[in-house]
């Protein structure tokens, strides 16, 4: 499934930060984890992951270090920082509100938790 660009842009940051909060990872592993979490339905241009990671690093949400892969290649590992965790918590709250609101919109009107009083 191809996603709207703006939606990808908005969701990518919390998604990546969330994945990194489970442990340090390198680029391709983050990519695979996203595929796993969305059961392969969420696909974006792979190359865009790296500019995003660099932006997060520049903002101080993640830090990076060079290591070596099992095949001996240079590999960059990313780790979430404490300010990254704070941002993640923030985004978590915001997304919860958005998701709640959306869930109610998706439901048919008669099953809404709070009937629209005064409009009936």
């Amino acid at each position, binding site marked *: 499934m191809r996603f709207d660009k703006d939606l990808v842009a908005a969701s990518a940051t919390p998604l990546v930060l969330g994945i990194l909060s489970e442990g340090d990872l*390198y*680029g*391709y592993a983050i*990519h*695979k984890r996203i595929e796993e979490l969305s059961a392969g339905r969420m696909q974006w*241009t*792979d*190359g*865009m*992951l*790296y*500019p*995003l990671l*660099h*932006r997060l690093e*520049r903002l101080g949400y993640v830090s990076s270090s*060079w290591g070596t*892969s*099992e*095949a001996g*290649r*240079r*590999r*960059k590992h990313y780790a979430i920082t404490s300010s990254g965790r704070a941002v993640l918590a923030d985004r978590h709250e915001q997304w919860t509100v958005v998701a709640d609101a959306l869930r109610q919109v998706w439901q048919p009107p008669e099953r809404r938790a709070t009937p629209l009083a005064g409009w009936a």
Partner: protein
Amino acid sequence: MMETSVELEEQIKRWRSYVARKQAISASDVDELEDHLREQVVDLRGIGLDDGEAFLVAITRLGNVDAVSREYARVHANRLWKQLALVPEGDDETVRNGTARRELAVALVAAVGAGLAVRVGMSLVGDGMRLALSLGLLVFPFVAAYLGWKRRLTSRPAVAMVALYIALAVALWVYPFSPNGVIGLLAALHAPVVLWLLVGIAYVGGQWRSDSRRMDFVRFTGELAVYYALLGLGGGVLLGLTAGALSLVGIDFGPWLVNWVLPFAMPGALVVAAWLVEAKQNVVENIAPVLTRVFTPLTTVMLVVLLIVLAAAGGVIDVDRQVLILMDAILVLVLSLLLYSISARDTTAPPGLFDGLQLVLVVASLAVDAVMLAAMLTRIAEFGWSANKVAALGLNILLLVHLVGIAWLTTSFLRSRRPFAALERWQTRYLPLYGLWAAVVVVAFGPVFGFA
């Protein structure tokens, strides 16, 4: 890990060089993307694709390189500006093996050494003619040592360079130049030209026969002039502010400046400028064509105005020597400008408007030179020969032949008769003559004209 085939390695190599050309994507970014690509290929082969298919799918998923590069550019906007990094940072190769830092250290030691040499020279010989004659000799070893170290100069050209240096030093030191004499002044003015040519031997790493290495030295000289001017401007502002602040509390900075700051700062800045040019050559290369495009038309206008003024003044027979020397200086400037723009030009580009403009500049300077030569010959006919006149005349004939050659070759180039490379070769072959002439002035003028 699965084995990767030769073919796949070849494809990845081609892909790498393609991506690496994007300015916004740094070498370590390419490493990171390559790691992703390889992992993806391995996974795809795991589900039954062959190498070629896996590679195709993997680069498709990685996305359009232009679009990805734009994303990189948005994050690293600064990369689109070529940064002059004093010492490259991060994971550049020269950082990992320590070359960059070692070079900085060598350059700084050479800069301090040049400053010390000048300071010691000042206290030993005072600040008269002797110092003027020695300044170049004092600074040269440090510039040459740095460049020679950088180029790993082999022993034969190094010996030649040192031998010529010693010969020049002996001439400058042994000749009994009189403290206020013209001959000494001429020698002091011409010695740096010879020394700079010797620096060239170190710069080209001994390959002094190679035209392209000589052209590199011309570029180096032009860029060095720009960096030195920038350092000088910055240093001047700094010293001016310091002097101003100190004068508020009644301290006179003047003697300090002359005795301690300038003797270290000026030669030191030369070595530092040389190092800056070496550290990142392409930063100024970007500005050289722009500078020449700005100043070529302006200089042409200046020369035309000069010609008109000379004509209106009714000939130059009566103008005094200072004017002639000034005009020589103007022509040297024009030639430097021409050299700078020739060295910055793309050799393979077809003739264009700017080449025409350059020809106009050359013709204007030839006209000025013709007027000057006429004036000088008249003076010689009237007052006879003197060292000053011979020096000015010799330089003038050198400039004239050089300019005529440039005019001739530019015309043939504009008419597509000759490649631009012919014009370039003319410069690189001709330039050593200036050094030879300067050496003649330094070495032969004293014995011929006396040392008064």
